[in-house]
């Protein structure tokens, strides 16, 4: 296990460096939070929606397919290390395994599971209302940092 000693010392050094930097920053930096500063940053536009809690299901699909491929890769590494001993048996085993994964991959692809293409339908934009003007969407901030309410 002594081979891992340098990794441990590097881990400690990296943590100390990061923590020390934060400490130095906390001591040196000013701290004058205002409501405008600690609001979510949207380039001066007042956020009118909460951040989305749901995102497209394709991201979940990617995560699931990744797990399948990651497991395949995990099996590939020990196989690659001792491949010269396994010889033909190892090759046939891995070709069969890769084919099994590949068949499911083909099925996914032909279902369009990994197809991100440009969206061809346009979504209804509920935010396009007559009341939505620059007065209601642009945040105006005074010199002292307070938000100025729209007139």
């Amino acid at each position, binding site marked *: 296990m*002594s*081979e891992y*000693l*340098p990794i441990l*010392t*590097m*881990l400690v*050094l*990296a943590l100390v*460096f*990061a923590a020390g*930097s*934060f400490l*130095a*920053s906390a001591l*040196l*930096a*000013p*701290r004058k939070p205002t409501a405008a*500063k*600690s*609001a*979510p*940053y*949207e380039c001066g536009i007042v956020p009118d*929606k909460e*951040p989305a809690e749901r*995102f497209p299901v394709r991201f979940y699909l*990617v*995560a699931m*397919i990744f797990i399948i*491929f*990651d497991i395949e890769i995990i099996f*590939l*590494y020990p196989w*690659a*290390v*001792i*491949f*010269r001993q396994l*010889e033909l048996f*190892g*090759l046939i085993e*891995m070709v069969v395994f*890769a084919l099994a994964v*590949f068949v499911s*991959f083909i099925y996914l*692809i*032909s*279902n*369009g*599971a*990994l*197809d991100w*293409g440009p*969206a*061809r*339908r*346009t979504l*209804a934009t509920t935010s396009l209302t007559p009341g939505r003007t620059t007065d209601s969407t642009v945040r105006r901030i005074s010199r002292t940092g307070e938000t100025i309410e729209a007139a």
Partner: protein
Amino acid sequence: MYSKREAVGSVTLAGDPLFGGGVDGAVVLIVLLKTGVAFAALMVSVLFMVWFERKVVSDMQNRIGPNRAGPWGTLQTLADGIKLFFKEDLLPEQADRRIFRLAPYLSIVPAFLAFAVVPLGGVITIAGRETRLQLADPPVGILFLLAMSSVAVYGVMLAGWSSGSKYPLLGSVRASAQMVSYEAALGLSMAAVVLVTGSLLTSDIVSEQSRSIVDWNLFRLGFLPFGIFLVAATAELNRPPFDLVEAEQELVGGFHTEYSSLRFALFFLAEFMSTVTMSAVMVTLFLGGPSGPGPDRGFPGAFLPVFWFLAKLMIFLFIYVWLRATLPRLRYDQLMDLGWKRLIPLSLFWLLVLAAMILDRRYGFAVFGAGILLGLLLLRAVQVGQSATDDAAGAAPAVREAG
């Protein structure tokens, strides 16, 4: 064939000669010294890389670039870093405070650790103890590299998720999908190197390539794994043209939009450090690490190999800057298509062809032919998939036109 396995096995047990005779006080001191030197070298290389990138990009755009702090502006990065210490550190009110604070650590620590297993040179002697110019040589070297590049995904994902803001969330969801997609291609092309070396030790991978330039894995593996690794590594690092994670026009600053002051500085540091580390990994895996272009003459001085290593490293650092100055950003669907529909099947195919070629040329050609047929099947599947998506989209009426 079997004697080779035993040779590899004995190397696995030996590892770094420093630990051959157990761990005593002197060994611990040498380890601390090496850690300090590696840490300092990494920090200096990051400072250099940031300056180098700004200078080369500005040259390519007919600008001058930083030229005030220090000779040729070399101290500009340091000045920027010191400035960030004095900047206000904002904590957004909607943020998940604990995770918001944790994320920069998860980003910077793997960047430091991954560099530890990269061999920088031959064996040197410090105070009568022989040791490699390599911080650590654990028996799971390659797996350790993969693990660190996976942990770095958490830093990006948690930073965006905990910010409690729209754009960081979108940036981090994109980032994690992108990074896991390209990690698969990265792992598959790395497996090809493990296959021909028969060992997970980075020092074995380097010594296996040290005989002459034709033994470099770049040539031995037939360029393809190297090409895939280069593309996948660029995507894994979120470097242009794969920097959709921080696409300014769409996402403000991406996952670190809400980060300011030193927390931002650490993300920035981690990003450039990962670039240096990933370039070093590419040199190790495919370009023979610290070995020169000729046959290995037993490393006359400890620093000639270091010179070769740095020379090769510079090639990749320049390539990254060059890519940034040249190529426009990919669209998200192009990014995912490139990763899933091209790089992953291609790298798996080439890995199996290489394995078959090691046994017998005939098996190799058989696997190659079968792979071409399956590739055609994949192309057909892509077509079917696209038309299925188009049909689904066409079935829904275009709302804006109707209203």
